[in-house]
């Protein structure tokens, strides 16, 4: 127990403070002790996905002993090479079997046998306040939280770079940036205020509406190749688009980051919302109830208090079809 007793030097009253031990907090070791058995079981059926050992960008669920693995689609768009890191520390190159934009899921295949895999339950009986848990920190920890709001669909808000443009006089070359969203796609790619965008995906841009025409049809997770002018130095960079809602609501960094949010956070036909302390790299992993039933796939880290997960009923029948089709193709 950490306690601070800050006595004043004058005759003032004593002010005492005491904090609850980290271990005893909701996601502390003592509370999570209740989930120890589930932790080892969950770790065996999970994998990390990323191009390098120290760059694991997603989690995944092992669906079959012969290596079909399910993960979030958006972050795989720009991932090269596509690799799977198993809980025993080994690595396997993955083949992309299917990427489904609507569900935001990607099915991968690695050449392995005898893998432990996830056993699925049902999610229809879940109610708000039901405990839920998932692996965090690349499988190192269990994370605990609750179903926190009504089950629902999340509408599409479109994709943006997170840039506000200055008014420009006609005839100018390029479009000047007035402001970039804190921690938004443009800022993460290195763009900043006063830079002048000259080309997007090899098309010249001279006013904000030209930028809108190019970005409009694109999706969160898509890469836009940007050429820009900056005083002293011109450059180019890749901007990974993000959902408009997530960028606009967090324009000034109001969310405190708390380890960041996913690029795509909307356009889902049905989600379960929960408050687990997860990171974007935990997306694609399995959401369990505390009895160990797999009930959903974590699909979007939205903000400090919000994650979305796709209920098992929404994707599993379709994903099993993809596996079936792939097996038949191989025969």
């Amino acid at each position, binding site marked *: 127990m950490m306690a601070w007793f800050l006595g004043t030097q004058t005759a003032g009253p004593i002010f005492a403070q005491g904090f*609850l031990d980290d271990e005893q907090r909701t996601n502390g070791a003592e509370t999570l002790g209740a989930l120890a058995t589930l932790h080892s079981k969950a770790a065996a059926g999970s994998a990390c996905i990323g191009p390098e050992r120290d760059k694991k960008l997603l989690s995944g669920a092992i669906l079959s002993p012969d290596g079909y693995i399910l993960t979030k689609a958006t972050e795989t768009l720009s991932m090269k090479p596509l690799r799977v890191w198993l809980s025993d520390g080994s690595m396997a190159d993955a083949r992309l079997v299917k990427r489904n934009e609507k569900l935001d899921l990607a099915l991968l295949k690695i050449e392995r046998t005898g893998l432990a895999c996830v056993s699925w339950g049902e999610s229809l009986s879940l109610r708000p306040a039901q405990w839920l848990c998932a692996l965090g920190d690349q499988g190192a920890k269990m994370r605990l939280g609750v179903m926190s709001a009504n089950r629902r669909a999340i509408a599409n808000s479109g994709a943006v770079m997170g840039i506000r443009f200055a008014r420009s006089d006609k005839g100018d070359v390029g479009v000047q940036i007035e402001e970039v969203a804190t921690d938004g796609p443009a800022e993460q790619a290195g763009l900043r205020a006063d830079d002048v965008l000259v080309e997007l995906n090899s098309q010249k841009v001279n006013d904000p509406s030209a930028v809108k025409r190019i970005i409009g049809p694109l999706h969160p997770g898509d890469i836009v190749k940007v050429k820009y002018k900056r005083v002293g130095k011109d450059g180019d960079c890749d901007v990974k688009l993000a959902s408009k809602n997530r960028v606009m609501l967090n324009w000034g960094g109001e969310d405190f980051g708390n380890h960041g949010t996913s690029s795509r956070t909307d356009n889902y036909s049905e989600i379960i919302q929960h408050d687990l302390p997860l990171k974007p790299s935990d997306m694609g992993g399995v959401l369990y109830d505390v009895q160990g039933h797999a009930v959903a796939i974590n699909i979007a880290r939205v903000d400090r208090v919000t994650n979305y997960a796709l209920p098992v009923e929404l994707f599993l029948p379709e994903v099993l079809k993809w596996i079936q089709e792939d097996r038949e193709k191989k025969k």
Partner: protein
Amino acid sequence: MTGLCRQPILFACLVAVAQLRAKESTLDDLLTVQRQVQSVLDQARKAVVALECGGGTASGVIVSPQGLVLTAAHVTSFPGKKVKVTLPGGKTVEAESLGLDTATDAAMLQLPAPAKAWPFITINREVRGLKLGDWCFALGHPGGWDAARGSVLRVGKLVKISANMLQSDCVLMGGDSGGSLFNLAGELIGINSQIWRGREQNLHVSMAPFLRSWETMKKGEIVSIWNQGNGAWIGISTQGSDDGLVVQAVAPDSPAMKAGLKDGDTIVSLNNQKLAEPIEFTEAILARAAGEIVTLKVRTAKGERMVEVRLAKRPKD
């Protein structure tokens, strides 16, 4: 620190800290908590409303059948303001802000007369009965009203208990301000007030300031506690580091500036007490009276020195 609002002022007083026995929770313990929350959740959600006031979105909670609503003072700012209230079913009504206590961030609103009776929740009056580690749950409208989503639940534990303030690990964000913190019996124990950067730094106004000034606030008056000698101001913000608190910004004409503190200085201790987190520093200052002199041990590139700072009143703006 980034506030969702102004900083709460803490009355200096003694809070008994019980030594908690280390005990691993079991699955049954967790499921008991789940059952308790679920048994009172529907009732609690019916009383939690979304507010729109001065361009911002926030939350509130109905505490009487006549439609008295508790919220945070930084939400309403003044008595007599019109506030748009969205009820859990999506219907909107106009409420009027009543009195408030800006020092502790406590405020009230009045809904229009009910057709029959407003759904409401009960206040926990045993403020001293709360213990560190007690399970609790928060409700609010983070990011504003969302009809399909409804109010958003967070379940967590009490991490710190002060005279006028509770800290929990129920994670809050913008829009949650004025929302509610409940015990497992479904009684109101706190009003969401502000957050620090850390996920577990979520602050709620306790029921103490409300209970103390209930009638004054209900009458639409502004509660003042400045004359009680607390709420001193130094005029810096700090960030935690391994060796102490690093000064991030010094306010012009503040006590800190007059004492020569600069950006990048590290505060090692305050009156010989080491401080681990910015929140502890802020509260140690707020617990003192304007005019009091504190001694800071400050480390700069040139070495360590002791700096005496005479605290002042926070300026009006």
